[in-house]
């Protein structure tokens, strides 16, 4: 019933058929490219370190540290964008406590009289965590700063076997998109394969692949996009598991600051059989902003797509949702090389104004 796969696909897939399955494929030979989410700003010299004004207070007696920290927790002064700064600075015998940014508190914060502290004063502090040792040293001269080198979502090595897995998945999602077109739908599909490695397979408790096509025509519902349909399929699959442990699916409904305001710590979501955690989603078209954020809420690990949607996409097109400042999860974005050619051959084109 379906047309055979076009030559361009056979050609790409064919390149990875022969050879040792454990061979690492060099990045430039992979059938997809990895999108860099965040352009790290260089802060390797003092003049490049981005700073802002904060209120701090000297602690006359080091023994006050515990009490003042305790008070700070319930004071409402701390904000999530202070996470990269340590709360206390020790310089020889002098301890200083970080209170809050002047941006959020233009006037000096009031301190509990019981602690008998001197008046707060303002100081320039680094605006972000240190990405390198050099920038850490520079930033520490201003205020002790957290060291957080970026490792996540750097290109990871791909063995031939895993490339084959990705090719098979992309082929499957193209088939489904063509099937959707045959049903009178938009030719868009999304696919969550069983993870390639045993460990992730066990951890995610996903033992069968889930696939969904776009159904906005038949459902008479403009939001029945393939990606949302696939997310729903995963949810229903998980709900049907006999020993399904209860889901903490609410993590994202609102600001986590709210959560932190009450518990004084980050939200914990343990276990990887949570939504799409550690899973990969393949889709024919770059997901729209709605679907890109739905994938972020669902904690997907990585997304592959064939066709960039420059005007409506949320994974590099109109916006780059997982690269936004402030969001609490990032996923990797991989764009298939020459994906558009492949898609055109298969009749998967949609209008440039379409939200995929």
């Amino acid at each position, binding site marked *: 019933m379906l047309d055979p796969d076009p030559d361009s696909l056979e050609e790409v897939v064919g390149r990875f058929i022969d050879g040792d399955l454990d061979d690492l494929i060099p990045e430039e030979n992979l059938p997809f490219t990895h999108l860099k989410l965040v352009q790290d700003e260089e802060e390797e010299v003092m003049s490049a370190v981005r700073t802002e004004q904060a209120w701090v207070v000297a602690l006359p007696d080091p023994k006050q540290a515990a009490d003042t920290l305790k008070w700070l927790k319930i004071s409402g002064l701390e904000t*999530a964008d202070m996470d990269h700064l340590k709360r206390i600075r020790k310089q020889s015998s002098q301890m200083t406590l970080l209170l809050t940014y002047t941006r959020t508190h233009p006037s000096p914060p009031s301190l509990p009289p019981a602690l008998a502290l001197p008046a707060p004063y303002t100081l320039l502090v680094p605006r972000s965590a240190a990405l390198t040792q050099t920038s850490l040293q520079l930033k520490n001269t201003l205020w002790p700063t957290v060291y957080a080198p970026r490792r996540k979502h750097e290109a990871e090595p791909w063995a031939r076997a895993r490339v084959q897995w990705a090719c098979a998945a992309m082929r499957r999602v193209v088939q489904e998109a063509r099937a959707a077109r045959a049903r009178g739908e938009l030719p868009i599909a999304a696919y969550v394969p069983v993870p390639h490695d045993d460990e992730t397979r066990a951890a995610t408790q996903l033992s069968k692949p889930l696939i969904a096509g776009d159904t906005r025509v038949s459902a008479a519902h403009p939001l029945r996009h393939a990606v949302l349909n696939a997310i729903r399929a995963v949810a229903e699959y998980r709900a049907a598991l006999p020993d*399904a442990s209860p889901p*903490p*699916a609410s993590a994202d409904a609102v600001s986590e600051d*709210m959560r932190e305001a009450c518990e004084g710590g980050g939200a914990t979501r343990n276990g990887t059989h949570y939504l799409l955690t550690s899973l990969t989603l393949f889709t024919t078209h770059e997901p729209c*902003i709605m679907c890109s954020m739905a994938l972020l809420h*669902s904690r997907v690990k990585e997304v592959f797509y064939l066709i960039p949607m420059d005007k409506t996409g949320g994974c590099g097109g109109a916006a780059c949702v997982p690269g936004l400042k402030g969001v609490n999860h990032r996923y990797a974005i991989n764009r298939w090389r020459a994906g558009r050619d492949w898609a055109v051959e298969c009749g998967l084109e949609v209008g440039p104004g379409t939200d995929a």
Partner: protein
Amino acid sequence: MSEDIIHPPLLAQTDSATNPEHVQWMRQAMQMAEIALAHGEVPVGCIFVRDGRVIAQARNRTNKLRNATRHAELEAIDEILADKQWTPALTPYPLSETTLYVTVEPCIMCASALRQLGIKEVFYGCENDRFGGCGSVLGVNAEVPHPAHPAYEAKGGYLREEAIMVLRRFYITENANAPVPKSKANRVLKTTITPQTSLQSQA
């Protein structure tokens, strides 16, 4: 102790955010948030209003449905589109005559969904620093261009403090849905609310 820390709402907000008509609708959205709280869901509620009457009301059901995308807005939208009374025939913008009242700024996902459906306008309670799609994190309602869908206006500050407090009440209780619940015995319910520091451009 808390009274002297609660800041008065910023002047620019006071004009519109106390408009009795909008506040009255927001109160109904808040009731939905309370229902969500009673069901162990993140307390966000919403109502959709058309021609002066509520055509749908909903609240978060992410825990129940094991689906992090089942926010109040999407739940209500599904109801409206499934109901022949409110959607007799599907038009390109089925919500073009409909206003949304929601207790928290729509997230990026919902803000995009609303634009795709041509929502008339949005009123919300408190801003959403981590996921807000109407200016706090990304201005999906207007700032981000779209080749087809018109922009819509989103105004915040309606029953803002109540919206924040109902969320805090949720996060202070033990979340029975978490796989390994974290003890929250030592939590203290904070009652101080910092003012919105920047008024987003809302159109």
